[in-house]
Structures are given as structure tokens and as C-alpha cells.
């Protein structure tokens, strides 16, 4: 597989300050995103946050009030949908019910007045690519959900667009099929080498497949970055809690010193909910007195039975609810000051994990300063 470096091929799609309202309701608010050539880009956000609306604006079915969208540097907003260099896989597939799978895929080619042999060759190629061999003569009603979705993808790909828009294509499928198709989708992306813009509200889907992700909420882009950046350095409280699971507390910065060993700033913050201070590292010096959010992921917290001081950032409490799921356990620990904290413990080696921790056990939890993260979103007293 070729290396997809940052900025290796330049920007394919540039979305600049797009705003769109339906009546009084603002569906998109000053959205700006730039998407590189051939990358797998995800738009991630909860239901109703405007993902489909943005995709429909790119495809040409909605007109924004302001802003611009360019493909390879040229504005496309004045073009009708049929003239745009992109194709869409719709949330409900939108296959033509009166045509067979093969005819659905051939549809855009016949519009382009391509000769018959050429059409046959191309359609066969894409049917093979999405692994629909043997199903090509079925009507959409006779296909399974996953097969329909693959017809929809083949139909969009056969036009050889420079950008493929996918609107939650997997949301209607069961978890197992979704996993398989996700892998297939990734393979198709590697094979055809075009820009994918993928809409989803499933954060694990987005994390596992994307080169870059833009996180949306209520019509605004909150953060754009690689899955790693989004997960490890969320820019707002919403991003931190929407992506993965986390513990997040408001905090006040009390002290900040540079640590020569870590080559980072060691910051002490006061957390009322924990009734204590906590240390956390950051690349930047942070002004004392700022009111920010402190977050620590459950899998980065250590948990041991009994009352033991485990160095920095250590607390004790009772296990309120253990949730066992085979490869890992999730504990809701009720700390001594009644704050709950979520802890994940992986079960890697049998019996190596120490004594089993059970309901109502006394436990100690702790984490290292480097594993915590300060979310640079300010809070005020009256929340």
C-alpha cells in the first residue's frame, strides 16, 4: 500500500465557511474543512448535526446561503448535481427498483452514451470489485441489505468520480456485516484510489477507517484531525466524551512548571469533584487560574484491590458495578467523596492480573500525569 503522507497530493475538496439554514433553524454554521486527495475522510457527529446536509450541498442537492466549495481549486457551487465530479451513496441506497443490479450499475454509463462492449466490460469489473458476482440479475428487492449497499457503491464508483460521498452506508446493517463491509470498503478505497468522504455517527467506525475525521455537533465543526489526534487530544468537552468513553471533570489550573525529564509542562489542577489536585502534562505552559476540563480515558487508569497509595493521582473507593465482557472488564468505581469514575481493565494473561476484583471490593485507582489530558475549553461558574 502506498504511503498517504500529510499533504502528499494536495487538497481535493475545500469547504469554506459554509452556512445553511432551514427557516429559522441553522443546520450548518460556518463550516470549513479541507480534504486531501485520495484520503478517506470522515464526517462524524450525532444524529441531526447536519452531516447529510453538508453532503447534499457538496453533491448539489442543496444550496448554501454563504461560503464556497472547490474541487481541485475550482468552485463547484454553480454546477448542477449532474455536472459535479462526485457521486453519492445515499443513506437509503436509492437503487432504481425497476432495474436489476447490473442495470443499476450500467445506468450512468448508458447516460454517457458509451458503447455496449465498453459498458459490459466496466460493469463486470465493478460487479467483481464489490463481489456481487452471481447476483447481477437480481432486482434490488431480491437483494440483501449488504448486497444493496454494494450495488449502490458500485453504481457510484462506475462513474469514476474524483470524490465519492458516502452517507452512513452501513447504518442499516447488523454489527457483524458492518464490520465485514467496513473492511471491504477500506479495500475498495485502496484499490480505486479516490477521495472518500464518509458520513457516520459511529465513532468506532470513523476511528478505524479514516485518514482524517471532522467532528460535528449542532452544525459546527468542533475538531478536524487524524483519529489519533481526535482521540488523544480532543479540543472540546463534546469531542472528548463523544469519541470513545472518558472521565471528564471541570478543573482550575493551580500551577505549571516545566519538567526537563518529560520535556513537557507539568500542570497541577484543582478538581472539585475529586476534592483534590491532579497532575497532568501538556506541551504548552498554561496560565494559572484558567478553568478548563481534565479528562482521563478509562483504559489508562490502573485499578488494584485494597487500599494502596500508587504514587501520583491516586484515589480509593468501592467497586459499584463491574461489567465483564470477556477480554476486558469495566468498573464503575465510587470514590470516597462519592464521585464515580470509569475504569477499564484488559484481561491479557490469565491469573497474571492479580486477584479478581468484584462488586463492593475496596479498590485503589491511579493514573500517570502523562496519560491525563487538559481540554482547552473554558467553563464558567454558572453552567
Amino acid at each position, binding site marked *: 500500500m502506498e504511503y498517504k503522507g500529510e499533504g502528499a497530493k494536495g487538497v481535493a475538496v475545500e469547504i469554506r465557511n459554509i452556512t445553511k439554514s432551514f427557516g429559522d433553524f441553522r443546520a450548518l454554521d460556518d463550516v470549513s474543512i479541507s480534504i486531501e486527495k485520495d484520503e478517506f475522510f470522515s464526517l462524524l457527529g450525532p444524529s441531526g448535526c447536519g452531516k447529510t446536509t453538508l453532503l447534499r450541498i457538496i*453533491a*448539489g*442537492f442543496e444550496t448554501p446561503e454563504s461560503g464556497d466549495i472547490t474541487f481541485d481549486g475550482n468552485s463547484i457551487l454553480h454546477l*448542477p*448535481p*449532474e455536472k459535479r465530479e462526485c*457521486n*453519492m451513496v*445515499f443513506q*437509503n441506497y*436509492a*437503487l*432504481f*427498483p*425497476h*432495474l*436489476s443490479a*447490473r*442495470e443499476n450499475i*450500467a*445506468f*450512468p454509463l*448508458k*447516460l*454517457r452514451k458509451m458503447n455496449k462492449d465498453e459498458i459490459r466490460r466496466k460493469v463486470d469489473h465493478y460487479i467483481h470489485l464489490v463481489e456481487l458476482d452471481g447476483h447481477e440479475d437480481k432486482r434490488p428487492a431480491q437483494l440483501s441489505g449488504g448486497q444493496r449497499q454494494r450495488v449502490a457503491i458500485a*453504481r*457510484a464508483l462506475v*462513474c469514476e468520480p474524483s470524490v465519492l460521498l458516502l452517507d452512513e452506508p452501513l447504518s442499516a446493517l447488523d454489527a457483524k456485516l458492518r464490520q465485514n463491509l467496513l473492511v471491504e470498503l477500506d479495500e475498495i478505497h485502496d484499490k480505486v484510489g479516490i477521495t472518500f468522504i464518509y458520513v457516520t455517527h459511529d465513532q468506532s467506525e470513523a476511528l478505524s477507517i479514516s485518514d482524517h475525521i471532522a467532528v460535528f455537533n449542532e452544525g459546527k465543526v468542533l475538531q478536524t484531525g487524524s483519529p489519533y489526534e481526535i482521540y488523544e487530544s480532543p479540543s472540546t468537552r463534546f469531542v472528548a466524551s463523544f469519541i470513545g468513553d472518558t472521565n471528564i471533570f471541570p478543573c482550575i489550573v493551580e500551577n505549571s512548571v516545566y519538567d526537563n525529564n518529560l520535556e513537557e509542562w507539568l500542570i497541577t489542577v484543582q478538581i472539585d469533584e475529586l476534592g483534590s489536585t491532579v497532575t497532568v502534562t501538556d506541551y504548552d505552559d498554561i496560565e494559572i487560574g484558567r478553568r478548563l476540563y481534565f479528562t482521563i480515558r478509562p483504559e489508562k487508569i490502573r485499578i488494584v484491590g485494597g487500599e494502596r497509595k500508587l504514587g501520583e493521582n491516586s484515589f480509593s473507593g468501592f467497586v459499584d458495578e463491574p461489567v465483564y465482557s470477556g477480554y476486558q472488564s469495566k468498573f464503575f468505581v465510587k470514590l470516597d467523596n462519592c464521585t464515580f469514575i470509569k475504569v477499564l481493565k484488559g484481561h491479557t494473561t490469565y491469573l497474571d492480573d492479580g486477584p479478581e476484583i468484584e462488586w463492593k471490593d475496596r479498590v485503589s485507582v491511579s493514573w500517570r500525569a502523562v496519560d491525563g489530558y487538559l481540554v482547552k475549553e473554558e467553563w464558567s461558574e454558572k453552567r
Partner: protein
Amino acid sequence: MKRDKKRINVRAYLYSLPMGIWVTLFFAIPIAIILIYSFLEKGLYGGVEWRASLAAYKAILNPNFLIVIWRTVYISVIATAICLLLSFPASYAMARSRHQTLFLFLIIIPFWTNSLIRVYAWINLLSTEGLINNVLIKLGIISEPIPMIYNLFSVILVLVYMYLPFAILPLFTAIDRFDFSLLDAARDLGCGRLRAIILVMFPAIRSGFFNALIFTLIPIFGAYTVPLLVGGMGSTMVGNIIVDQVQKTRNWPLASAFSVILTLISMIGVMAMLGSGKKKEEMNEKLL
């Protein structure tokens, strides 16, 4: 499996029995009677003599009658075509509108008034002393009244008025059920707006279209009151002849023969259209 199928068949017969009795009593038997009457001799004061004869069919071959049959065919075709052309944009707009119920209500309102009264209303509008001519003359746009009634124009106009709702309702139902995101998909794949409608929407609403066609063409073909009330000498239709033959000339076999011809023509017409529709679909499939 087999037994299951059998049981279902028995049930199917049972369920369709009431309908079967109804159809036999009120359609099949009357049509059979008409068919038989058309091959008998006419009685002196109406009724029939029970002697086989082809006199009625020979009488129809009279050029005067043939002209009426031909006229009935083309009036029906024109009126139906206008109905369908008008009903498509109307149904489309209704299906897309937020005020569907209001529009449906507006279309149904006229049915609460007796159709004869509505035809008389048209007479008041169209006649030489009627509303339209009066207004135009008062406004000084014309000096002489325009002859708008008792001719082909008025017959077609009022027929279209009477049967338009019968075209709109089935078409509206079909379009309302249509998944409009398919049009977006078609445009995304490279169709212009109109082409998307033709290639994707038309196939999906075919059955609604044929329903509209049948619900307008057949009643218009047998129309009787409209040509009687707003038509003139040059716009008599077969329906009028049948009534004349029954009531005035009292030639029941001839009236029956006309009915038989009317039924035959409309049946053949509808079958031909349905057939061509099917064939077209098959051709489309082969093309792809």
C-alpha cells in the same frame, strides 16, 4: 406444501365468491343479453323478435353511423389525452405540496354536486348569452358573442372537466408513493432534471398512469349526458345513438349492436395499450 397450496386455492375461491356472484349477476348476464339481442330482429314497438338476424350490424355500416363511431373514438382520445397531460403536473405538485389534504379535498368537492347540475353550470358559462360572452362583450374585447357551446369544443371541454379528477387521483397516489430520493440519485449519476423524471419516475408510476387512463378513457367513450346537453348536431356520440334507438326509434337490436361495438372497441383499445406498455418495459430491459 402441495396440500397447503390446495387449501389456499379453496380459500381463494371462497373469498372471491361474493364478488363472483356480483359480477355474474350484474355484468356477465346483462352483457350476454345485450350480445344475444344484437343478433335478433327488432320488435314492432320495441323489444325483440326471437329470430336470428344480422340486420342490426348491417344497419351500423350506414355511413352516418360509422361517422358517429369514428367521432366517438377521436373525441375520447383527445379528451383522455388532455386529461392525462393536465393531471400529471397537477398530481406531481400535489404530491410534493405540504397541503395535500387541502388539494384532495378541493378535488373531491365537485362530487358532492350532481353531475347534471355541473353540466348546466357550464351551459350558463358558455352559451351565447352566458357569463363568459357577456363579460367579454362588456369589456369591449369582442363585439359578437363567440360560439362556444353545442359544438365539439364544448363537448371536449366539459368531458375533460368531468373526468379530470379520475385521472388525477390514481396518478397522485402513484406519485405520492414514489421515492423522490431516486430522482436525486438519477441526477447524481448524470441525468438532467427532466431526464431523471422520464427515466426513473415514469417507470415507477406506470400502473398509476394506466389506472388514470382506464378511469378516464372508458367512461368518456360511453359518455351520454355531456354530448346530449352541451353538444350539437356535429358532436353526437355513440352513447346518444344508443339512447335514441332504445327510446325513440325503439330498435333494441340496433342499440344492442352499438353497445357491443362500444364494448369491443374500448376493450381492444385498453388491451392494446396495456400490451404496448408491457412490451415497452421489456424493450427497456433488453436495452439495458
